[in-house]
């Protein structure tokens, strides 16, 4: 079935749609299906699911609103978008919670069936906003989504409650028509998903088709829109979330290193999906252990690493706090271990379902003693795959725990992923100890568990089972070479410094950073890490469209920093550091490079918006005397002319 709308079609470059409803209305599923259709159609896209920490908040209330935003375009895009062009509001609370984010003139599709006096009161309305002029800035389409859904599925002998559950598919059908989305993938999906429940399958498909047909025939919508496919390199693609990409990265790393993978984890939002996903892949040599607590989770993973497996533990901020002591032990034991921290709003329990980047300093310094370890961060959902491979490469090569800092936005957000050819991915060499590595004065050979590789300073990895390599390791300071307990002051000083030097040497294996500075004339550098990559890129694009020069660089390696970072920072008159914390990377950059890096932060639990980032950059350009803070594009061009 291909849509052949008879109504006029308007071309648009990009669209932002937000589906919003009650937690039980299936908005995440609806958004996910729309995203799949859009991905298959060939648009570039970015998504932003947002949901409460409670599984079912009181129905119809604002705290219970769940939403899914998707931004898609005929060009490459970097963020889920700031201001939706379309809001689908399944009830009054969903309208109230989201209307302030809409751009002027946006389309609102509201389910009139749910705009009852009772629901309006629950949402805090004293009038029905669909019936007064409070929404005059928008194109409001009141549609009885629920009523029409019930009508569409009446032949399938469902209870009224079951029937109304398909209303999200009606809404999906309507919006799919509005933007010319291919509908077959969703019909196929529903057919597969409800194969065992024919009634539910048929009802959902009927509701979905009814939504499409309603858009096409009803007089409500005068036009539909077309967003052409985006220019992308050829290849095979799928849409992927950060947690799934990270999980695949770990599975892949295990195969590329030819090591069994052992994940120790304790359920925690927003990291649990990594545990769920990896538990499906036992046939790739992945063992998952749902531990009694966060400490046991890392303890078992470290035990598995000691035994020669690839130990991984996944968690979020509160779990990181609990794991600190064991991470310190891993630093001391010098065994490979990847600690995945899917950051969320903190401190303490904080905002379990919202994003933040405030665990950077915890990852860097959250242990007793001098306990350095490499820290790396993915920059987009699909990039979580590559970042996981890099974390494992470093952990195995340097025999060290590595912290991989994802966040809630990357974890649940999605984007198209160009599928790698796995045979072309670099192998990871475990390089287990095979025999004695040292000759005694009397000519006998023995094994020194802390004799280091001259290049990497890594110690041998000698899992049990090899005769002649029996050795004891532990958390007490150990003598250089032998690993025996040592309280010798000079030895301790040496060991502290050599552990630091080993981590510093990771930088030798990291390629130089590439600065994005097309004109080569920029005086302003914006630097970020992790999930701010998209918003920073979007802000940079906007500022460049205004005719300004701005350079962008983004860090995957946060410890150690890439070798050429200091030289890059010194090149610019101003360095701005946007982060979703109170300036943690800025603190590190200032401390290490003695530069006046300026921190620009947001801790609202949501990513920076493109417009917000544009404002940050314009303000910085204004400080430099290049732009005008009045944010007027004409003034800005004048300023640019004056500069030349």
């Amino acid at each position, binding site marked *: 079935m291909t849509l052949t709308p008879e109504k006029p079609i308007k071309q648009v470059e990009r669209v932002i749609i937000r589906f919003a409803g009650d937690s039980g209305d299936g908005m995440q599923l609806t958004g996910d299906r729309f995203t799949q259709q859009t991905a298959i159609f060939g648009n570039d896209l970015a998504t932003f699911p947002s949901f409460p920490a409670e599984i079912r908040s009181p129905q119809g209330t604002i705290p219970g609103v769940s939403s899914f935003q998707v931004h898609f375009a005929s060009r490459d895009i970097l963020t889920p978008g700031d201001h939706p062009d379309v809001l689908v509001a399944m009830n009054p609370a969903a309208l109230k919670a989201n209307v302030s984010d809409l751009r002027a003139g946006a389309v609102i599709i509201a389910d009139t069936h749910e705009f009852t006096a009772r629901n309006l009161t629950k949402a805090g309305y004293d009038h029905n906003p669909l019936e007064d002029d409070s929404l005059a800035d928008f194109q409001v389409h009141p549609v009885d989504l629920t009523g029409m859904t019930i009508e569409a599925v009446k032949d399938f002998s469902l209870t009224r409650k079951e029937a109304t559950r398909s209303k999200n598919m009606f809404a999906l059908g309507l919006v799919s028509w509005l933007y010319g989305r291919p509908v077959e993938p969703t019909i196929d999906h529903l057919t597969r998903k409800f194969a065992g429940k024919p009634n539910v399958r048929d009802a959902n498909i009927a509701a979905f088709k009814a939504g499409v047909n309603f858009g096409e025939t009803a007089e409500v919508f005068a036009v539909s829109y077309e967003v052409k496919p985006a220019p992308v390199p*050829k290849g095979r693609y799928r849409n992927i979330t950060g947690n799934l990409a990270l999980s695949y990265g770990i*599975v892949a790393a295990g195969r590329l290193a030819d090591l069994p993978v052992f994940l120790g984890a304790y359920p925690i939002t927003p990291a649990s999906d990594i545990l769920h996903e990896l538990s499906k892949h036992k046939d*790739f040599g992945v*063992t998952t*252990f749902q531990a009694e607590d966060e400490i046991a989770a890392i303890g*078992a993973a470290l035990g598995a690493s000691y035994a020669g497996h690839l130990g991984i533990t996944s968690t979020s901020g509160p779990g990181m706090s609990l794991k600190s002591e064991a991470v310190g032990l891993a630093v001391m034991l010098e065994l490979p271990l990847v600690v995945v921290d899917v950051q969320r709003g903190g401190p303490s329990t904080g905002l379990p379902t919202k994003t933040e980047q405030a665990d950077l300093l915890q990852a860097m310094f959250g242990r007793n003693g001098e306990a350095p370890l490499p820290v790396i961060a993915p920059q987009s959902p699909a990039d979580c795959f590559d970042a996981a491979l890099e974390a494992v490469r470093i952990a195995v090569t340097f025999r060290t725990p590595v912290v991989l800092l994802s966040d809630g936005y990357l974890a649940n957000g999605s984007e198209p992923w160009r599928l790698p*050819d796995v045979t072309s991915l670099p192998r990871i060499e475990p390089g287990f100890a095979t025999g004695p590595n040292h000759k005694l004065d009397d000519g006998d050979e023995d094994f020194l568990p802390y004799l280091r590789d001259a290049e990497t300073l890594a110690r041998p990895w000698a899992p*049990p089972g090899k005769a002649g390599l029996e050795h*004891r390791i532990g958390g007490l300071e150990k003598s250089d070479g032998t690993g025996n*307990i040592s309280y010798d002051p000079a030895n301790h000083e040496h060991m502290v410094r050599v552990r630091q030097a080993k981590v510093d040497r990771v930088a030798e294996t990291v390629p130089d950073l590439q600065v994005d500075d097309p004109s080569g004339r920029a005086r302003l550098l914006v630097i970020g890490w992790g999930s701010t990559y998209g918003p920073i890129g979007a802000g940079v694009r906007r500022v460049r469209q205004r005719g300004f020069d701005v350079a962008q660089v983004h860090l995957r390696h946060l410890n150690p920093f890439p070798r050429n970072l200091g030289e890059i920072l010194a090149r610019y008159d101003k360095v701005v550091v946007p982060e979703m914390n109170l300036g943690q990377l800025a603190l590190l950059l200032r401390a290490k490079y003695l530069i006046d890096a300026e921190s620009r932060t947001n801790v609202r639990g949501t990513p920076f918006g493109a417009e917000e980032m544009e404002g940050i950059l314009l303000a910085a350009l204004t400080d430099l005397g290049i732009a005008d803070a009045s944010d007027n594009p004409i003034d800005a061009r004048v300023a640019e002319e004056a500069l030349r």
Partner: protein
Amino acid sequence: MTTPIDLGLPTPGTAGVPTLAEGQQLTGKDFTSDQEVRWCPGCGDYAVLKAVQGFLPQLGLRRENIVFVSGIGCSSRFPYYLDTYGMHSIHGRAPAIATGIATAREDLSVWVVTGDGDALSIGGNHLIHALRRNVNMTILLFNNRIYGLTKGQYSPTSEAGKVTKSTPMGSVDQPLNPVSLALGAEATFVARTIDSDRKHLTSVLSAAAAHRGTALVEIYQNCPIFNDGAFDAIKDRDRKADAIIPLEHGEQIRFGPPGEDGRGSKALVRDEVTGGVRAAFAADVPDEAILVHDAHNPDPSTAFAISRLTDTGYLNQSPIGIFRQVVRPTYDDQVREQAGPRRGLDDLQALIDGGDVWTVEEDR
């Protein structure tokens, strides 16, 4: 190759661990590392170390396939003194680390050495969960009823009222009974022995090593510096007959000075009032009323009742031996059974290519 015959016997704890070549025999010396032992003179740990070094050769296993993991405390220095693979980890976490090792590697004989503070206080959670999961490992819990390494604070097994550096007016904590705790956690092997009785200690170690699953062995161990004499009642030549209640599977539970039949003059019988067990003079009760110890009973209630005969205050009486020894599938064996055939890069490509995939034929 002969077809193995399933005789319905329990799988030994060391099944899957490589054994020494025919005719090869190790000695205690082979298990002695080059590290100087640094416990206080007179510490009970010496006796346990000697017993373990003497016992390990009996297993006939390859030394490189034996791993000792410990936490923090005096007893946790144990791995340094054994010439096997070893890890001296962090406080209380040894059962968790050993769970990872045992689950990852079927070919390793995994031992945990811990103490009353390490296992029952800071690491209580890990101990409980290791026991209920039944991970194939042996946990040696050295119980000296005191914190030794931190110089003499009361521990979770110290008697109430104990005056220590941190409890100058006497401890008001109710002590834990490690055997009761383990039985409550549905451990499949629970035993108690004494540092000074090498023969008994060795026999319990042997049974524990043969057990597939988590074996918890509580070892009464004297700390001569901070809690000297804590176990005097059961070590004293004159008192120990009354103090030790020996548990032998299939035997009547008799203790006390020998009676006319040459066996202990006291016995354990059902306590009709409490539903537990109590001591009685053997001569005062019918022979069939005397409890016959059944360590293999799937129901742990009687074993638990027997464990309650241990004094919570100063120790005057304690059952010693194997309380419980039952067969239950182990966590690690079941995890390994779930593992499928190991897939390679082709399958990996198929995995990541799964889901809704689309192809862009030309750069656009």
